[in-house]
């Protein structure tokens, strides 16, 4: 059996900023692999080192120590070749206000060497795919925030990269726009594109990512599939009973137990003994948020409040 080489390989990657690199340690010997065709979540609070990692992986800055390989290429020494095969969506939608949607896409393709004959056709297809066909000749400055985000992602995909880096893609978007964007990201995986996603929305990561790394203070504190991470807290599966007097809900009772059927039986017996009616029985499984709280010691609010709430 052959294993395909990782799309991203990171070994002991370290970055110090300032004071001739004796200053702030932004990234501390981080190591991980991202297999091809996967949505990889890189989660952590502000200042954890997420954007620093993206800058190192995309050749925007050089590591103090360690190695980063993207598609088998050493990022430090072969940055130009790496850049040709990746697409990057930064946290801020940074296309050109003075150019139209169509012209922004064509300019992006021009930079990446997409043949002239192809550019127009691809730009039109991308505008349709991202529901911006009717905005073709509208200046980027005139788009809504969600549309700007969508066009920025379209521009990152225009040269058909093998890996897409998405830095906080849904921050600041309304619910509908964020939902559309998540559907787009899921679509990328279906097309075989590797997605490196940083986000502070743990629910979003849980929904989208095949594998996640939790990073705090420049160090990775957990690295596994979402299911495996949650399995660490399986013993904390809870049963939640909504009890009532007659038809009116009066109390929600939560029982944490490793054996769910036994816990349900026990709770039902207890309700009957108390003369209460059972209006609903729900099992509450650990979420990625629970895992984050357990592993980092931080509250989930810490990571989300810093970015201004949920999308």
């Amino acid at each position, binding site marked *: 059996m052959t294993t395909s080489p990782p799309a991203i390989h990171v070994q002991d990657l370290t970055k110090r900023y300032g004071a001739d690199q004796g200053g702030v340690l932004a990234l501390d010997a981080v190591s991980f692999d991202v297999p091809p065709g996967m949505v990889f979540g890189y989660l952590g609070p502000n200042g954890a080192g997420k954007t620093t990692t993206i800058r190192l992986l995309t050749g*925007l800055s050089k590591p103090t120590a360690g190695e980063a390989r993207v598609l088998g290429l050493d990022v430090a020494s072969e940055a*130009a070749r790496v850049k040709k095969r*990746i697409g990057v969506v930064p946290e*801020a939608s940074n296309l050109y*206000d*003075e150019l139209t949607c169509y012209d922004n896409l064509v300019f992006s393709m*021009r*930079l990446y*060497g997409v043949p002239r004959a192809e550019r127009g056709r691809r730009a039109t297809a991308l505008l349709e795919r991202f529901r911006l066909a009717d905005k073709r000749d509208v200046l980027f400055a005139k788009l809504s925030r969600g549309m700007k985000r969508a066009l920025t992602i379209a521009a990152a995909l225009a040269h058909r990269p093998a890996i897409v880096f998405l830095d906080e893609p849904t921050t600041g978007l309304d619910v509908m726009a964020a939902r559309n964007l998540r559907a787009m990201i899921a679509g990328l995986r279906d097309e075989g594109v590797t997605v490196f996603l940083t986000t502070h929305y743990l629910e979003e990561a849980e929904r989208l990512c095949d594998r996640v790394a939790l990073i705090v203070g420049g160090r990775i504190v957990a690295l596994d599939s979402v299911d495996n991470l949650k399995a660490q807290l399986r013993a904390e599966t809870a049963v939640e009973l909504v009890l009532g007097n007659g038809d009116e809900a009066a109390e929600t009772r939560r029982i944490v137990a490793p054996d769910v059927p036994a816990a349900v039986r026990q709770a039902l017996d207890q309700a009957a003994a108390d003369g209460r009616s059972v209006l609903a029985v729900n099992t509450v499984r650990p979420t990625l948020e629970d895992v984050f709280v357990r592993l980092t010691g931080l509250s989930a609010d810490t990571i989300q409040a810093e970015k201004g709430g949920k999308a």
Partner: protein
Amino acid sequence: MIQDDLRGMVGVMWKDLRAYYLKPPNISWGILFPLAFVLAFAIRDGGNLARLAPGLLGLTLLFAATSMEAIVITFERRIGALERLMLAPMRLPALMAGKVLGGMAFGLAMGLIVLVGVLVAFGPAGVNGWLLAAAMLLGAACFSCMGALVSVAVREVFEAQTLANVLRFPMMFLGGVFVPLAELPGWLQVVARLLPLTYCIEAIDLALHGGSPARAGLDLGVLALFTAGMFAIATRVLARRVA
């Protein structure tokens, strides 16, 4: 690699021209401002426009080439758009060359409009076309590099505008636009010899009115040195800023 650099460089130049340069405020800044100054001095001097023509051309190149160049990199860094260019498969000198070519092309375009006016007014007889082309090309390149250097030297757009004016206005008064270099006090002549506009205007003057070929060669050589030096420094400063 070189193909990627060339493609990126030309792409950046076209994008800058479309997005920033070809706007009415830039065109007016590039042409009307120098024209207004020169006409004012011409009226004072009794209408000697022929003497002022080299200065008008030099000044147009200076103001047009630096109009956006002096702020465009600062502006794009502020809005995050420069990062988009840095993520493209080209090396930093190619990115910088694309930026400089944008300013240079705009400077030349504005300079050519003024040149047509000058040639219509005074006729093309006796004009050294090759020297004129070289002087205008090198002048535009030099001033665009100066704009790029200003643009990478500061963090805010308003700082870039201030610094650009700090450099442009002394050059305007000392570079031989309104007062011939020979009429300046000795110490000011030394200062004037430190300014690239002086060499640009002198070379254009030699092209339009004739004179020592050796002097013209020296002017072009100094302009080329200014251009190369400012390009190298601007690229190095940008590399440090974005590291």
